[in-house]
């Protein structure tokens, strides 16, 4: 059963989309139930995956670091003197992608429940939704660069339509901006992909003819299956604007994934996309799509170019720090609740950059944990923002005050998730940040002051969260429009059904983070040590 | 007797006529001027042909220029007929306004 589990998880939603296609358009409830069923099955499968994942595996090289590996020949063309072009459906997971898959299947289920009272052409919505879920999970499991890129691009399409059609007033501008911004990012990745393809050969298949068989498989790229004189072969002397070509490739990847992450200079698409996206979609956008950027750093940028990564830790850490501080400050200036949460996500994503740049086990573990915990917390925060938006159609922080009087249970959840997000210990936000600080201050690549300045980040995040909390929830009950006062009823059953599991998860991960970090620890340690060993090897060449 | 005037003289002359024809086509506003311009360009070509056919025993240049003249005549006839039609329909002869190809 477990040999084709991964493919099942990836393509099950696609099967369900085919089923939905044949349903008549007006059977809204039936479509919703089917979608709910599909994502539920996907979650169960990923839970099975989680428990049958063998945590004790001590891999020596990338080729046997992955489990549940499935490989099938997909495209192989003979390109004359360029040798064979070999692209295969190569899928497998290690600790990092395991956590990402479980997070994404859980949030997809939350997304379906969150979009329950949707009434505008439901069929189209859920078809795009399930395509999105396939591509997201596929992206996390892909081990072939080409396959990863296909899923990476495939994710943009449904997202574009989901924001573009079901979004808020300025959805056109936001969705186009989101689409083109990420597309430009993926161009950089495409460039590096082709460079790598030309300089990597799959030794196992060369036997056919005497020509070289080029391949896209990430494992080869990571394990150093380079041909002697390839462009990106380690130890190349090719210079590009005075920098070693491998460093340039690494920087291109950084920019590509930094747009997705988003890191500060290239983050302006996130607030627009979030403000305009419907609640369920912004939960997915914050929960999953930002993690693809982070995952890209882990798997591709740091996996294939560790030598460049080691030398560039300082600038990356600086960018991470700027994201944390700058994101926090801009969040303080927002007067739309959802925009504030979007900017706080930018600030939290800065931790991932910082964690990775510290290049040690705590830092990488912290970055990974931060990705998972941010997925849950920001998902819940967007649901909460959605609650207010559904009731009044407005999210301005200045337009409400004293909501605690009218909606006490809602305020309870807001307090929990606000404090989780600002990093109160005992909730999951703190663990990620604590490990990243541990890594940043303890790493011998980074100077101390970077860690100290980013610690000020937790003070800034406390400032804007509490300020919003006080302006919106405490004080006398008042809303800008008189009519809203009647519509401010407390949380409905459906919303509670969403928020309670998230709250439990956030507290559980805060108190006992080892539940998810334990099994994944070997792969993180292997990831860091392998990167380090590889980088020394490449630098020596 | 022709040596007194070198061939480049005639080439320059026909070139001048040719470029004048082009200038007229582009500058003038009336369709008739365009026709005039075309005539000039054709004549410039003929001038060259005729001048060089002197040195050609087979007189090909001359023959082609005759054909050119004939064709020019036919062409002007057709052009004017079309022009009349356009004028009938639009009441204008300014090539600028003739922008739509409908009906």
């Amino acid at each position: 059963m477990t040999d084709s589990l991964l493919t099942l998880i990836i393509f099950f939603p696609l099967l369900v989309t085919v089923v939905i296609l044949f349903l008549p358009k007006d059977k809204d409830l039936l479509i919703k139930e089917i979608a709910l069923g599909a994502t539920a099955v996907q979650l169960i499968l990923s839970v099975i995956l989680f428990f049958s994942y063998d945590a004790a595996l001590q891999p020596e090289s990338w080729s046997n670091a992955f489990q549940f590996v499935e490989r099938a020949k997909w495209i192989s063309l003979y390109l004359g003197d360029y040798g064979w072009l070999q692209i295969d459906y190569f899928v497998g997971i290690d600790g990092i992608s395991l956590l990402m898959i479980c997070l994404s299947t859980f949030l997809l289920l939350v997304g379906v429940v969150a979009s329950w009272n949707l009434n505008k052409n439901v069929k189209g919505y859920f078809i795009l939704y399930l395509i999105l879920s396939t591509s997201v999970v596929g992206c996390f499991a892909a081990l072939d660069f080409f396959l990863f890129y296909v899923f990476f691009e495939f994710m943009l399409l449904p997202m574009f339509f989901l924001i573009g059609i079901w979004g808020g007033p300025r959805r056109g501008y936001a969705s186009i901006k989101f689409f083109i911004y990420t597309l430009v990012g993926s161009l950089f990745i495409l460039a590096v992909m082709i460079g790598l393809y030309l300089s990597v050969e799959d030794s196992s298949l060369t036997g056919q003819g005497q020509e070289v068989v080029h391949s896209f498989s990430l494992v080869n790229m990571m394990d150093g299956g380079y041909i002697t004189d390839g462009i990106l072969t380690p130890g190349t002397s090719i210079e590009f604007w005075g920098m070693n070509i491998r460093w340039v490739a690494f920087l291109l990847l950084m920019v590509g994934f930094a747009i997705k992450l988003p890191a500060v200079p290239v983050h302006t698409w996130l607030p627009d996309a979030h403000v305009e996206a419907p609640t369920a979609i912004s939960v997915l956008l914050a929960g999953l799509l930002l993690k693809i950027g982070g995952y890209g750093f882990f798997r591709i940028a740091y996996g294939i170019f560790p030598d460049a990564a080691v030398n560039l830790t300082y600038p990356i850490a600086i960018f991470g720090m700027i994201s944390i501080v700058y994101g926090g400050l801009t969040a303080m200036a927002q007067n739309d609740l959802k925009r504030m949460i979007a900017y706080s996500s930018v600030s939290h994503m800065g931790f991932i950059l910082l964690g990775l740049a510290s290049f040690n086990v705590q830092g990488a573990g912290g970055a990974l944990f931060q990705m998972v915990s941010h997925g849950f917390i920001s998902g819940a925060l967007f649901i909460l923002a959605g609650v207010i938006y559904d009731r009044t159609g407005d999210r301005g922080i200045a337009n409400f005050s004293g909501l605690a009087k009218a909606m006490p249970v809602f305020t309870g959840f807001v307090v929990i998730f606000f404090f989780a997000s600002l990093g109160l210990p005992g909730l999951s936000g703190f663990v990620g940040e604590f490990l990243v600080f541990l890594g940043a201050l303890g790493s011998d690549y980074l100077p101390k002051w970077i860690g100290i300045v980013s610690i000020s980040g937790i003070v800034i995040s406390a400032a804007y969260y509490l300020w919003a909390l006080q302006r919106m929830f405490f004080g006398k009950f008042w809303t800008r429009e008189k009519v809203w006062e009647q519509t401010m009823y407390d949380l409905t059953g459906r919303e509670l059904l969403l928020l309670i599991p998230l709250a439990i998860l956030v507290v559980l991960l805060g108190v006992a983070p080892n539940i998810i970090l334990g099994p994944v620890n070997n792969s993180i340690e292997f990831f860091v040590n392998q990167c380090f060993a590889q980088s020394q090897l490449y630098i020596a060449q | 007797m022709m040596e007194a005037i070198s061939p480049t003289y005639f080439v320059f002359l026909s070139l001048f006529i040719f470029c004048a024809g082009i200038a007229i086509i582009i500058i003038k506003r009336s369709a008739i001027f365009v026709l005039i311009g075309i005539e000039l360009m054709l004549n410039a070509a003929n001038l060259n042909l005729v001048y060089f056919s002197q040195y050609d025993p087979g007189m090909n240049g001359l023959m082609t220029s005759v054909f050119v003249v004939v064709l020019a005549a036919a062409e002007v006839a057709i052009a004017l007929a079309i022009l009349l039609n356009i004028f009938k329909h639009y009441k204008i002869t300014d090539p600028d306004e003739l922008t739509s190809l409908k009906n």
Partner: protein
Amino acid sequence: MTLIKTIWPLIFILPLFSGIIGGLNSKQSLKLSNFGIGAGLLFSIILVWLLDEPLILEWKWLEGVSFGFSIDRLNAMLVLLVYLITLLVQVFSITYMEHDPDQGRYTAKLGFFAFSMVGLLMSNQLVTLFLFWELVGMSSYLLIGFWYQEAARSKAARQAFMINRVADAFLLLGVIQVFNNGYATSFTEILSSGNQWDGFTGLCFIIGAFGKSAQFPFYGWLTKAMAGPTPVSALIHAATMVTAGVYLLVRISPVLIEWNLQVIAIGGAVTAFMAAVAALTQFDIKKVLAYSTISQLGYMILGIGVGAYQASVFHLWTHAFFKAGLFLAAGSVIHYMHELDSSKDAQDMRNMGGLQKILPVTFYAFLICGLALSGLPFLSGFLSKEGILTGSWLWGQSTGNYLVPVLAFCTAGLTAFYIGRQILLVFFGSSSFTQKIIEPMLTIRVPLIFLAVSSLWFWNSLNPINPLGWFWNSYLFADLGATSAQHSILGVLIGSIGLSLAGLGVAYWLYRPEAELTQNFKNSKEPAQLVGKISFHGWYIEKFYDQIVLLFSKIVAGAGWFDKKVIDRFVDGMGVTGVVMAKVIGWFDQNIVDGLVNFMASISQLIGRFVTSFQSPKIQIQIGWLLLTLLVLLLWFQFLT
């Protein structure tokens, strides 16, 4: 005994249950949760009595980071103290909060506070300590902002949390330094291994402790915390939460290096003196007590600094009792004034006076606890303060730095003065009130009586004069061995008694009922001259915070000279930095970074428009371009190839 050994971690979960039970049915919530806290108290008494060697419970929280609790004598005793005071405060608040609509939420929050406080006291690993440290901060935020309807109270709560948050950031930095430098990460190891920490880590911990115990730079938040209900102030801001800083310093004092201890000593002394001066001219009954708490905390920190940490623990113990007594007595006064007519500010001493006959029990409790605070012999305050004064005197002699003992002695005098002033103003003088209400027997009187009696001397040591006679001394510090063979120096003894008597005398002379000062005290305004102003505004510490925020925002914003009006409109504590600077960055982010993206879009539009102009409908233009391209082709092939 073995049963205790197995289920002792239960002790800190109990209040959480009682809080949750209380929270559910809000009507009798307070009565219900008393059982939970009472059970906790009983449990801790048994624990203190039976405990012989420290019990440790640890499990792996993260890779290389473990999560652990431990009970040894010191924190067992403190846990007992916390439970005792919480029980008394809850009993008191049954009447105090009886007409408050959401008592359920009040009990839940109190339960949550007790849970996190006891958790803090019992945590052994530094990470666990930090976790509960922040939870205590959060629960104090929730409790201060209990009456959230009034914007001022919730704002005070936010400012209190923010200032705590700044200090906690340093504490977090210290904890991470400990991990990275490989020092011992749990108190038990610190006690045993004792390898000295480097100065910077020590300093981070000190700043963290100063933040929580409201020492010099950070004590602004404690006066703001008075916005919470009075029982809360009694519990949190007198007896338990603020002593967390002292507890932490006592725990890590073995590993701190020399200059760190000096920083503690001087910091404590300076705070004690400043707070005592500030308490002289206050009008609000709770503000006086708040400043006196800060100054007593200064004493405890000073004690640790000079090495007499036994005396400071003893002072912590006694201070908890008489300060809680003072707060609860003030609470019953406020309750009475509130009942009388809720229009006037119930906490303003100017419209109080002559309550002696009206609230007899409150008066006697206030009197005894007040005298204990001022350090008169035959009362608990005297014993512990004596220990600290002798410690500071000896320390002064050995290190030659006499600033600390001098400040300590001045504060002793000032304390006596301001508590005397308060007693005279509130209870003596002409009583304009007639209607005599009898405080409900059980809920108000019993806790007051208990606290007043407990601040007498015989609870603590047989001989009323000798500070070392503390019963618990042998229990607590037997294994550590008394560090310096302390003996009470006659000179210090006479000095401290003299000073407190002098303080009381001056207070009586100035504020005796018929003195003209008391006469026009009713309508006295803010003191005019400089010294009075400094004291009234608490050394302008809150103004000082706003100035830092101002300065910081100016430097960071760097946008020219902000005119005063703009800044004043934004001045609301922490928000100022963010708002002014964030607006600039927000605008910047919107226009520049975002603008860049839109600019790219408009360029492509521009090019598009330019290119289309070539395909203009005019025929002649097209002919022209045709020929031009012909020309270009011609030139290309002719000249360039």
